């Protein structure tokens, strides 16, 4: 649903303010409970959902080649990009109730849910049907099964009935009258009861009528007799344009109960919805930011757009955010480049749209001291140039980079690479930098500058890859045979942008180790603090520490014989509670 609310808000919040950074969104730490108008995690800290929607879960699609590969829409790689690159903590997963016929369905669904939870993403399960008017009893039956399957998942929330339509009301009843809300309660209560009957205690989202007026007219009659209810809204740009409208539709409720907005996007392909937004990209961007800020101010959770080409991202490979800069033509069909992605990314990372965008090896906000960082944006060096040798220069192509740490101390960073135009600058965060919020400033030979805010961490595990923090891990695999001789091969091979994981040989009678090129591991307390999994199975860490290449670390793991024949699988690390990017490794037979 297209939604850009109030033009009056534009002046108040023209853009993200890097000086007032939001920082890393809190990782979900359930079980959650509702207290007054807040969602509290297991430690009692308030939690706000910030996320997006995934494409619908279908067991047959998730089993096919599209979804099963590294970059499928529900793959760990994609989910990792949402957490690390987009700084989100929630995904909304639409389900097709008609497919949930047996427990096999829920077993497959649980695999996706666990994958998201492992990558620090709360999952909202949101069942829907292809056609409207599904009888409530069918939905209650679904929840009896679904809630039973997920009652022990602390980082799952149930959206009982997304988008209930007033068309289900008897003729002549206004959806926002007392009768209308009584009907709404009578639809929702059996679903709540069905979920609670399974023993599931997670919060439940109950969505407003999907007519754009949301909870207008609900009053006390709305409140459901359950302690863990979140009220769901789907604001429309066309109908919720002013502060007064927002107050009427959901503002009053947000002061009394937790509210979550979901399912909103620009819908550029929908002529009517698209016509309701300004044609100037800057004006749309300002309004979207203003709306996000308004939700922040009201402490309202939200999921926005969809992890789908042409929605949040341009593609499921580099996960580059869609942009409004290139413009759009309302109703002209899908344009995979146009959307809110870059805007959302910038908002959640507290970066400016056209300023530097700095990530660590994992593609995330946290960048390890002593580790390498990639900055994207207006580099504009004298020419494309790569530093030679291991002693990196402090100035390259007319560019210098300064890192001002949380103690206020500025240090020059050593630089690997600079681009001539809007491109990339690769540099090393000075080892002696203090942890915490820091400012990176790029100074050009013409005395102009660009800067942004990053977070320096002691540990921020990232696997080096050759394509945008995803794909095959970079490193070597070595077999050590009983007679002492060894055999070593690379883990990845690229032809242009096409990178493939090379099979790790697993000869019988030999032990196999993989030495991975990583960043952000060197300050881990001990090997015990590093948890590495391949295909979900934990593997031993043999050693870790700085590599010979500046800014890089090495991580050596054993590949146990039990993994022989696993094939290509996800490789993930957790270090001191921080999760790495997801990369791929191929284990041979």
């Amino acid at each position: 649903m297209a939604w850009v609310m109030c033009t009056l808000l534009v002046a108040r919040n023209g853009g993200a303010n890097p000086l007032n950074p939001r920082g890393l969104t809190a990782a979900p730490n359930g079980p959650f409970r509702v207290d007054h108008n807040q969602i509290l995690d297991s430690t009692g800290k308030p939690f706000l959902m910030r996320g997006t929607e995934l494409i619908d879960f279908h067991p047959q699609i998730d089993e096919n080649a599209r979804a099963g590969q590294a970059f499928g829409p529900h793959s760990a790689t994609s989910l990792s990009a949402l957490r690390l690159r987009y700084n989100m903590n929630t995904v909304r997963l639409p389900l097709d109730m008609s497919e949930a016929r047996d427990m096999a369905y829920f077993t497959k669904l649980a695999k996706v849910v666990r994958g998201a939870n492992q990558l620090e993403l709360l999952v909202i399960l949101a069942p829907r049907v292809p056609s409207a008017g599904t009888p409530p009893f069918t939905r209650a039956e679904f929840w009896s099964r679904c809630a039973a399957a997920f009652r022990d998942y602390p980082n799952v929330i149930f959206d009982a009935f997304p988008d209930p339509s007033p068309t289900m009301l008897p003729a002549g009843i206004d959806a926002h009258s007392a009768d209308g809300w009584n009907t709404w309660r009578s639809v929702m209560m059996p679903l709540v009861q069905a979920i609670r009957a399974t023993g599931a205690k997670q919060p439940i989202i109950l969505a407003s009528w999907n007519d754009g007026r949301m909870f207008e007219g609900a009053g006390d009659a709305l409140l459901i007799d359950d302690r863990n209810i979140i009220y769901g809204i789907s604001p429309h740009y066309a109908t919720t344009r002013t502060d007064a409208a927002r107050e009427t539709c959901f503002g009053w409720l947000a002061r009394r109960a937790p509210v979550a907005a979901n399912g909103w996007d620009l819908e550029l392909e929908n002529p009517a919805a698209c016509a309701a937004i300004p044609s100037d990209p800057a004006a749309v961007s300002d309004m979207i930011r203003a709306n996000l800020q308004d939700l922040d101010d009201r402490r309202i959770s939200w999921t926005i757009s969809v992890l789908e080409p042409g929605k949040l991202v341009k593609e499921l490979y580099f996960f580059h955010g869609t942009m409004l800069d290139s413009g759009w033509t309302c109703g002209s069909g899908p344009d995979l480049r146009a959307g809110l992605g870059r805007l959302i990314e910038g908002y959640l990372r507290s970066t400016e749209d056209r300023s530097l965008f700095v990530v660590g090896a994992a593609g995330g906000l946290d960048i390890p001291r002593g580790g390498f960082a990639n900055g994207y944006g207006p580099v504009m060096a004298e020419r494309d140039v790569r530093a030679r040798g291991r002693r990196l220069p402090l100035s390259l192509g007319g560019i210098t980079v300064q890192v001002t740490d949380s103690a206020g101390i500025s240090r020059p960073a050593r630089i690997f690479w600079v681009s001539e135009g809007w491109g990339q600058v690769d540099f090393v965060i000075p080892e002696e930098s203090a942890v915490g919020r820091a400012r990176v400033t790029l100074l050009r030979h013409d005395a102009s500058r660009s800067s942004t805010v990053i977070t320096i961490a002691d540990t921020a595990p990232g696997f080096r890859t050759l394509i945008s923090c995803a794909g095959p891990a970079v490193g070597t695999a070595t077999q050590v045979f009983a007679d002492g001789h060894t055999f070593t091969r690379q883990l990845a091979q690229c032809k242009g942008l096409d990178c493939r994981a090379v099979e790790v040989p697993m000869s019988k009678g030999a032990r196999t180790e993989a030495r991975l090129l990583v960043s952000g591991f060197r300050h881990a307390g001990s090997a015990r603090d590093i948890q590495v999994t391949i295909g979900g199975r934990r593997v031993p860490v043999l050693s870790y520490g700085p590599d010979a290449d500046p800014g890089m670390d090495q991580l050596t793991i054993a590949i146990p014989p039990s993994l022989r024949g696993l094939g290509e699988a996800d490789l993930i690390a957790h270090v001191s509670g921080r999760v790495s990017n997801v990369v791929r490794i191929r284990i041979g037979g």
Partner: protein
Amino acid sequence: MRGVPVALLMAALLLGSDPEAYDWRLPRGFPKPRMPANNPMSEVKVQLGRYLFYDQRLSVNRTQSCASCHQQEREFADGRATSSGATGEPHPRSAMSLVNVAYAAALTWADPTLRSLEEQAVVPMFSNHPVELGLSGHERSTLDALRAEPVYRDLFPRAFGESQNPFTMVNAARALAAFERSIISERSPYDRYHTGGEEDAICESAKRGEAVFFTDQVAGCFRCHGGFNFSDAVTYKGKEADRVRFHNTALYQEYPPPNRGLFERTGRWSDIGKFKAPSLCNIALTAPYMHDGSIATLEEVLKHYAAGRAHQHPNKDPRIHKLELSPQNRADLLAFLRALTDKEVLHDPRFANPWEPQRTSVRAVASRRPGRGEGQLAKRLAADRSRPRHLIAAN
């Protein structure tokens, strides 16, 4: 004590002849231009060059001056597709803007050998194919005319005091070069935004256009028109001497003589159609475009690059790809290009015609005693310098 003021005066005079002492008044981002050792910049030399630049006595029939094809109100170009000389002979190529020519690593459209403004200045004066100013064979009479002018009787000796005979065509060329070198544009909205840090100096559309311009996957214009001067044929003091690159943009499938670009100099087939990437500073004011002025507007220039293979040429620069821009990208790119316009150059009295009475009373100045004339000139220069400036000179 009496010796101190004399010493200061001597120091000031020495300083005046010191090239390092010339105040370029450059803002942040603009390096010092390179200048030949045998023609150091000085204020008086720039002034002399300015008078010569606008002096029609420097043409065979006293109908044209340098300013005929390099008009201040047209960003020191002439607004025509191709120019014509003093005798009416047409020129094959469009007159290039002289704004920021101090930073040009190669001069004219396609001559890799012509690298100093001093050398270039004599080309229009004496060339016969085609005739531009047509002074060949008229050197003596031209110099006689200059000697007869009170302004020059004041300025030539002061600009070239070290010469026994300052009135030479070589010195005239040096003075012209010095003036041309002084025409630096640095107050465009984009300059103020990019190096001046004025966030509101350009509109949002131009900011988006900047990204379009500087991104390979979109327009990638910066590959040939990058850097502070928006050209890849740039030099300045301290810069390593690069080989100047010339580019075939596939403007034509067959380039007609004598407009075959670098080929006219090298005779190599692979150089057909290759021309210098001109600076895009003030590009919105220097229409028509391309080496032969064959494209009337910036919009049409973008259409040419969007045509992609419409004109295929074996020498086409591989960096030039089909420009696939959305309408928004195109509008933003145009907004960016227009933000490179420094309108102050159009009216800057430092570069204006000094012979026009409303601009200055130079004849009166020159007719006075030299000491007073110097004083007036100094006052004028001081007045020029007191003009409001958007950017603070770093050098």
